[in-house]
């Protein structure tokens, strides 16, 4: 599936605006809804990368599952006591400085990538900024093969983990747990 390149920056803007809303909105319901916009935008970015499988997984599991779970949590826990939930000035300053430091570090790494040459990271260098054109359209089939071949052991561990998580969550919310 090919998406018009002109839509790339609007979709990126949607992702970042949604993330900003999720991080900064005072009302947690709005924050959760902004997070939904951000997650849909990330699915759109996967379409630009011709990763349809990842985009569909993103929509089904994140937007359809995790976001609903988070909205439930917000409805459940929001302002029950009417207390002030705004962050204190100190934690705001701390948050902004931590965010700026992370941004500087990650941007530094991102801008470094096209120039990584002759170092131990030459493998990374070979991948950068070379758009390899259309990739095969049967990638979901190939991904299925990979899951049952080179990723088989992690796949089985993941299945066990999800079962453990299901039982553990039920155990945590049991009425006589405390």
């Amino acid at each position, binding site marked *: 599936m090919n998406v018009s390149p002109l839509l790339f920056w609007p979709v990126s803007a949607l992702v970042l605006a949604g*993330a900003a809303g999720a*991080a900064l909105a005072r009302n*947690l319901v709005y924050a959760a809804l902004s997070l939904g916009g951000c997650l849909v935008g990330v699915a759109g970015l996967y379409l630009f990368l011709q990763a349809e499988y990842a985009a569909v997984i993103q929509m089904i599991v994140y937007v359809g599952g995790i976001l609903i779970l988070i909205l439930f949590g917000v409805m459940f826990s929001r302002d029950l006591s009417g207390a002030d939930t705004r962050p204190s000035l100190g934690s705001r300053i701390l948050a902004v400085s931590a965010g700026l430091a992370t941004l500087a570090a990650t941007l530094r790494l991102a801008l470094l990538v096209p120039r990584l040459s002759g170092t131990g990271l030459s493998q990374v260098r070979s*991948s950068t900024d070379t758009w390899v054109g259309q990739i095969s359209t049967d990638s979901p089939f190939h991904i299925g093969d990979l899951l049952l071949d080179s990723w088989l052991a992690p796949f089985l561990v993941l299945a066990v983990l999800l079962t453990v998580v299901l039982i553990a969550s039920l155990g*945590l919310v049991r009425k006589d747990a405390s």
Partner: protein
Amino acid sequence: MTELFLAGPERLLPYLLVAAMLFSLGVVSVVSRRNAVGYLMGIELMLNAANLDFVAYGRFRGPEAAAHAQVAALFVVALAAAEAAVALALVYAVYRNFRDVDLDKIRSLNGD
């Protein structure tokens, strides 16, 4: 810069820039939120940034790496779902014991 702007989705750097900003906003959310559910949303933002980097790097590496990257993304999404389920169960258990989910107020380990 203009050339990068016009090239948009066919270059690696734009994806890395978006992912970097996404990750930083996740850090801001994790540090500043007092509500446990808001904290969880920050973690989801950071996981999404990492996933975007996975898929973008794989795509620019070639068809085989693109498929592997999508498998890695699938694993991250599944772990995020597991993490959200356990975290919300914990929030519920904490709320039942403390009648509050403000992370600044929940300090004791034995419920006193």
